[in-house]
């Protein structure tokens, strides 16, 4: 095979790998977008959950938000269009967690007063990580984890 043919084949293989998302690293969520609301309005957190492999919206994904500014966590399921929306939120630093299939994805966002933030998620429902504990550490007085103990866990942004 001559050099030109070799280059063509390599480019073809790289193109296929790119198109199918094999080479994508990390969750690659779209950036959050903030809209200003009228002064005095409470803030909102909205978004759409997509399958990162197909681009399809994911209905029935569990979306949980947590903030020290809230009394407890709030949760809802994404609708048929993959959309979720939390309204009447105080400003603060929120952790948004999306659970669907094997995917468990977290994102931290800062919600300003009187704003609507759209934060979309691109998740891989089939993605599964195994995290192996390699250090001995104390969980609580008297409880220890052995270093040879493998612990399976769902993926999170922190591990991708």
């Amino acid at each position, binding site marked *: *095979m*001559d050099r*030109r*043919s070799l*280059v*063509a*084949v390599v*480019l*073809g293989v*790289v*193109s*296929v*790998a*790119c*198109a*199918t*998302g094999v*080479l*994508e*690293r990390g969750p*690659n969520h*779209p*950036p959050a*977008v*903030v*809209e200003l609301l009228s002064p005095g309005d409470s803030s909102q957190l909205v978004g*759409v959950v997509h399958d990162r*492999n*197909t*681009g*399809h*919206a994911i209905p029935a994904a569990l979306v949980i938000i947590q903030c020290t500014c809230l009394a407890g966590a709030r949760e809802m399921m994404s609708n048929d269009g993959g959309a979720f929306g939390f309204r009447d939120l105080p400003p603060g630093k929120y952790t948004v967690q999306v659970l669907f299939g094997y995917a468990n994805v977290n994102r931290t966002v800062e919600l300003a007063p009187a704003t609507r933030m*759209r934060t*979309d998620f691109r998740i891989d429902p089939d993605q599964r990580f195994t995290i192996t504990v390699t250090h001995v550490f104390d969980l609580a007085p008297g409880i220890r984890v052995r270093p040879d103990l493998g612990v399976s866990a769902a993926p999170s942004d922190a591990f991708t």
Partner: protein
Amino acid sequence: MHVVLDSPLVVRPLAAADAMRRRWLHLLGPAARPIVRRRELRVALVFSALILLALAGALLLPLWLLLLAPIAWGVPHLIADLRYLVIRSGYHLRTRLWWFAGGPLLWVAVGGELVWGFVAAMVAAILARAELGRRLVAVVLLAAAAAAVFALGGAGDLVFSYLHNFLAIAFWWLWRPRAGRLHLLPLALLLAAAAFLLSPAALALSQALGGLAWSPASAGPDHQLWRLAPGLPPELGLRLVLLFCFSQSLHYGVWLHLVPDEDRERATPPTFRASYDFLRRDLGDVGLVVAALLTLAIAAWAVVDLAAANLGYFRMARFHGHLELVAGTLLLLERRR
């Protein structure tokens, strides 16, 4: 490979298309002669027709066009990008460009930050065969552009994708020295169409025609609004969506028809068979087969799952805007004045 590429299945349709075109030109008689003989006139007319067609498409069915156009013309236009910007320009023979500018471009292609595309263009500027002063000016300008895109974050990438659609038109303009002024006709039409699409009247007209109501299930107006104009007021955002649809269609048209027409030495258009032979000469038999397979694979994927194929195409194409930037930098710096 020859057996496939020379088979009657490939050659006969080309011969039939040539025969049909000959008959059509014969029927048109003397009226067709200036169009065949004068490239300036032909390109001006075809480009103007393309602008009107893209404008009609952007007003009548923008949401379908945004989804289907990349499926139909996306891969062929990537091949045209590589053919005219890399192979025909001879940049593929320069080893240092492969390594030092191709590396960052490959990184962008496999999912790296888009700012690396500007690094590739800066490296290309350094390696260009031009005076040192001009190269340094180019590096400074590209660094400023990269800093602006980096500072804007996601919005910067979006601005770049809007601009890259119009970059194709700049390539067409600069591709060949212009003898007359006929090329100004489509440019004036283009500016008028873009200004119209940005006006409230275009959005009102599109809505009155039902253009935004007719959309694929996976990519309605809301989806395109968030994809192409996130955070902007809906009315302004939808006008930008229309402009993007229009400029995307033109981008494909420029790479697939106008630049090939401008690139030829002879002013008269070649036969379809001759075009096919030129394409084989430029890409090589293996390259042509790979290109055809990629085009067919994206189309077949779209039949199964349109939204996934669209996403797959854009994953595959994410390097090409910066490839155009790299080649544009080299063309501008090495252009004979």
